[in-house]
């Protein structure tokens, strides 16, 4: 029989006992739905965790430092040229690093302790420059109050929550962490604060000393008015431990201010700055070791936290495996439903099978027909099940976000149904249905036509 005829007859047969076949198909749908819902939550949680970790910069960042920096204790243990011969970590070096395959951006690490005045009160804090790309890839800015910097050079700042509390003179009660960010933002957003800092200005060069006299510079005290545009709850600078900044400037602005940084070897002139360290962001955590090697070959020190994601991935692989097994249990139960339905159909259509064989249907024709019926139930059950599973996942996500909101956490997408999950769930449903159809189909094909025709 041609495929079209098999499909046509199968659909007619399914429509004939529409109630029973619908119940069986609903059974498959529930099985597929539970599988999809479980896996979509597993995948969603995995994506959430890896997104958080990636945005934290822990796994996709290599920090490059110059070996000339005497404070760098690591240099003694590293291979490569001795510190004195190590190249300077300047703008050409930064461009070269930015061109290593896999590197998304390389930006200088600018941070300094300085005085910030607000309401005529001085506050001493660590200030750091933040690259403009952080807007989309640093999740500290996801749930922020106010907005990110309007441009890379804007005279704007964002404050970390604890510093905002300090500015407003609020002392959070010990043990509680529930000061509402929106309450803090109201009196601060749009206000100005003044940052006082020391500018490193190049000294007028003397022609007799030549261009090598780049070490000469002077320090000028300056101040800069900055507009508060945003407040973050999470710490954008969580990597830095005790050196964490609480006030953040656009990186370009921070560079242009030529703030004197606490670096013993920072002796370059302002027109050719040498950086203390560069943060090198890599496209994919897998590329970190290669980029690290490339930077080391250029004569700089490089370090990163690699392989820490491996255990996380392993955890999620195990979790997904468990979720898939539990989800598949429902599908296994549903497959018994298919066997039952088709065996019942054989009993009901025994005579019809006999007639078909008497007028020339082969075993393969009869087998194909029952197979097609099982496959069709699998296909429809799979499609309905994926939709149902998607809806269940959404519902759980919705409920979870209400809960998170009540706990003053930013909302999160803990559920994800990628296209591969949709297709493989439907495919899996069809395969399970076909396997369930194996026994009934071969039983129908083996039916003795003489016996079947006698059957009333």
């Amino acid at each position, binding site marked *: 029989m041609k495929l079209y005829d098999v499909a046509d007859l199968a659909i007619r047969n399914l429509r004939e006992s529409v109630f029973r076949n619908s119940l069986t198909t609903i059974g498959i749908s529930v099985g597929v739905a539970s599988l999809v819902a479980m896996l979509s939550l597993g995948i969603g949680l995995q994506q959430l965790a890896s997104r958080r970790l990636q945005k934290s910069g822990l796994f996709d960042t290599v920090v490059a430092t110059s070996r000339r920096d005497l404070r760098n204790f690591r240099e003694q243990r590293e291979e490569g040229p001795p510190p004195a011969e190590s190249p300077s970590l300047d703008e050409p070096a930064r461009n070269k690093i930015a061109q290593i395959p896999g590197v998304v951006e390389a930006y200088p690490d600018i941070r300094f302790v300085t005085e910030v005045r607000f309401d005529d009160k001085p506050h001493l804090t660590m200030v750091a420059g933040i690259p403009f790309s952080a807007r989309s890839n640093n999740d500290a800015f996801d749930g922020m109050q106010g907005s990110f910097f309007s441009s890379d050079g804007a005279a704007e700042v964002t404050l970390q929550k604890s510093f905002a509390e300090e500015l407003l003179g609020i002392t959070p009660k010990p043990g509680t962490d529930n000061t509402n960010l929106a309450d803090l933002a109201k009196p601060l957003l749009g206000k100005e604060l003044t940052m006082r800092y020391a500018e490193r200005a190049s000294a007028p060069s003397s022609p007799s000393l030549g261009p090598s006299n780049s070490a000469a510079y002077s320090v000028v005290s300056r101040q800069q008015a900055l507009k508060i545009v945003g407040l973050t709850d999470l710490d954008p600078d969580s990597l830095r431990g005790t050196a964490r900044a609480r006030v953040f400037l656009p990186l370009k602005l921070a560079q242009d201010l030529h703030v004197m940084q606490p670096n013993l070897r920072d002796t370059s002139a302002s027109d050719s700055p040498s950086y203390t360290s560069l943060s090198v962001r890599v496209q994919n955590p897998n590329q970190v070791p290669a980029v690290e090697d490339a930077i080391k070959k250029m004569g700089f020190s490089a370090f990163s936290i690699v392989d820490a994601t491996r255990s996380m991935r392993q955890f999620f692989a195990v979790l997904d495996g468990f979720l898939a097994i539990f989800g598949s249990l429902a599908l296994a139960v549903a497959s018994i439903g298919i066997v039952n339905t088709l065996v019942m159909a054989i009993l009901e259509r025994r005579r019809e099978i006999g007639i078909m064989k008497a007028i020339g249907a*082969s075993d393969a024709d009869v087998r194909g027909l029952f197979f097609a019926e099982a496959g069709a139930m699998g296909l429809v059950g799979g499609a309905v099940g994926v939709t149902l599973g998607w809806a269940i996942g959404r519902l759980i996500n919705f409920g979870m976000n209400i809960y998170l909101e009540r706990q003053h956490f930013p909302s999160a997408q803990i559920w994800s149904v990628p296209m591969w999950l949709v297709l493989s769930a439907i495919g899996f449903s069809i395969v399970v249905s076909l396997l369930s159809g194996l026994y009934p189909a071969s039983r129908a094909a083996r039916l003795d036509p003489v016996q079947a025709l006698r059957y009333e």
Partner: protein
Amino acid sequence: MDISGPNSVAVRTENVCRHYQMGEALVRAVDGISVDVRAGEFVALLGASGSGKSSLLNLVAGLDRPTSGAVIVHENNLAELSREQLAKYRLHTVGMVFQSFNLIPRMSLLENVELPMRFAEVDRRERSALARQSLERVGLSGRLSHRPMELSGGEQQRASLARALINRPKLLLADEPTGNLDSRTGTEIMELIRSFNQSLGMTVLMVTHEEALAEKYASRMLHLADGKLVNDLSNDGVRGISSEPMQAPGPGGKTQ
């Protein structure tokens, strides 16, 4: 139509047996029947209930396999065919009509008649035209979309005949085709079968227990009792293609 000459053997059974085990007892439904049927003959199989006539018909139809002996139809030994080949044989070589019509109730007449062509993988448009033609030939052109239950017994049997003939078989096997019909309708069906036998030269094997019907239409009558052939009569009153009954040849013998 590929029908062999009038003197060739269409069906030959060689000492064919079909025995069933029913609990302790061995039922000899067909017990050593040897018979030759020439192409184009109209043969009636007569006998009481349980005489083995339907069992013999099922063996010739390829629906059942003999316990021993051979059934040779147009030089194919059915016992040697695989299940797949036997299905092909049923599809292309034989057409069957049954006492209870055996149309599929949830299909229209047109779809019922089309069904064997689905198995034969005939193109969709072509088979619809052929099915219409076939139903027209049995006088059912106005009933194409009716379901079997909406028709009289006679009409159902005519539809069943249309289905049996759709793949142009060489052999028409009829199992009590008038058994569920009144005598007037039964006569109509028999006239149709005779017309196919005569106009198409189709060999007909018909099981019946109505002697009068056999005498009127069949060119040859085989009487069975207890699974054995007890009488083989040619019916001179009927103008068949062949009127000479043939004796089964000995082992290894072939058509003269």
